């Protein structure tokens, strides 16, 4: 098995996700970046599962997928809400609350 290659890929994706979270101007893209991070997690899980010959990894990955979908759904709803109120989906504009 080429576990290391998978892990490296996963790490790369995770890093990309983090980068995206930080730099993207559009909240939807931020959400996409988070998805990227979750994909990295899934790759990890599947790779480990395969290496260990353990189905639990795949099961875990399925759970992650399912829940991530729900999470993103909620996220998009909130973004939509904000867009309605602010006519903007730029996270920068979300700065009313300030101590």
């Amino acid at each position, binding site marked *: 098995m080429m576990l290391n290659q998978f892990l490296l890929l996963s790490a790369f994706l995770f890093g990309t996700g983090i980068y995206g979270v930080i730099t993207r101007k559009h909240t939807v893209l931020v959400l996409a970046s*988070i998805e990227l991070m979750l994909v990295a997690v899934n790759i990890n899980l599947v*790779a480990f599962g395969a290496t260990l010959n*353990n189905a639990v*990894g795949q099961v*875990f990955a399925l759970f992650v997928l399912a829940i991530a979908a729900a999470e993103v759904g*909620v*996220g998009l709803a909130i973004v939509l*809400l904000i867009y309605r109120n602010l006519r903007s989906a730029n996270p920068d504009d979300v*700065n009313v*609350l300030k101590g």
Partner: protein
Amino acid sequence: MFAALTSANPHVDFLAISPEIALIATVMVVLIADMILPERSAWQTSRIASIGVLVSLAWVAVIAFRDPIAPMFGGSYAIDDYALVLKGFFLVATYVTILLSVDYIAEGDYYQGEFYFLLLCSVLGMTVMASARDLITLFVALETISIPTYVLAGYRKHDRRSNEGAIKYYLIGAISSAVMLYGMSMIFGLTGETNLAAISAKIGTLPDSKVLALGVFLSLLGFAFKVSAVPFHWWAPDTYEGAPTPVTAFLSVASKAGGFVAMLNIVFFGFGLQPSLWWLIIWVGAALSMTLGNLSALRQTNIVRMLAYSSVAQGGFMLVPFAAFGLAQSHGDAAVARGAMRSVIVYLLVYGAMNLGAFACIIAVARRTQSGEISSFSGLFQHSPVITVMMTIFLASLAGIPPFAGWFAKFTMFQSIIEAGGGWGVTLGVVAGVNSVIAAYYYLNVVRSMWFRPAADDARPVQVTGALGASLAVCVGLVMVVGVYPSFFGDMAEAAAKVLG
């Protein structure tokens, strides 16, 4: 490995999961009722929801009197005293939250049915969390807790502050989930297990591995977000301020407790045998949370924000026993471990009662003053002495002043860290001690406003509605009873902590 799952007896002890079943049923009923009830009767959903919670609570009580039940679903779902105590706690906290919400939600421009639906979903996640003994279950439970609260936080749809709080909360939550999962994936990769007991058995035997360290660290980091430990607490004040106040109460108590329970599970059941990987992180986190939380709270003029920072600090206090556990595990002291778990649980229970009470008072007062500023509490004593006394009791309890329950929470916290001992332990104890004094200052600041300052011009007394009054009564009762008879919570926590053996 897959065989382990398939070969497991599919027999499910439905009684054991009856609280969850009851909740799910209630969720359904609420949804349906919301659809069929006319607008003006929508408040009935709150009644349904609260009945459902109480039924669920009753089931918890029933199970508590049964013989011990073996872990189910391949060991990933435990129905033991620990789980039952926490389930009970979550359900009561939710019940009180519902009481808090009834008038607030009914009077505001909110969708009522959905509100209770979301609340119940979240508490369902909590009850599952209490039993979760598996990384997957834990993750699912955590998300079940979190996702509805993202929506709840933004429940004041037309309020930009609420929107803003929700998006912050959501993004931080989502990122932290991802980080946590990344960590979990590494732990799974190294141990080949998702079951916490199995992980615990293996983790001690693993060679020191940087990957393992990273895995443990990242998963703890995820929880640090959930429990808003410094330095991952920034979202909390904004979100708390933005969210509807009952939701804030729920977030600061139940949701936070969910995070702590998740952390308890993973730390005590999973990582216990590798304390060197994490105790220092938690030690630092605890010290920072207490100190920065308290110092920031000193500056607040808005009471909700103040309580937000206060809850960050209280979270810090709750982290102390974790550090104590870590320190003690280094010397392998089982009694300390139990004491630490007991103290976390006691703290959670007490914190729940007093913080919900404080929010109940705030809601009651804000109904009249329409303000969250501390100055709006001025002279409250002169026209509304009862609510003032109650608020004072909750604040005093938060400050840890006997004879209110808070002292016992603080006490067990001190006890755990002093029992762990050593230079690190005592130092953290002293830090906590000093912090409890700082905390007293800002709590008393509110007290001072209420008692010593002249009243504002309109000195109409604060009206307390029935539901609010009931929630206040529950909280005051608990705070006072536990204050003078701490065994009430102490014994529960002790029983719960017995699961550590």
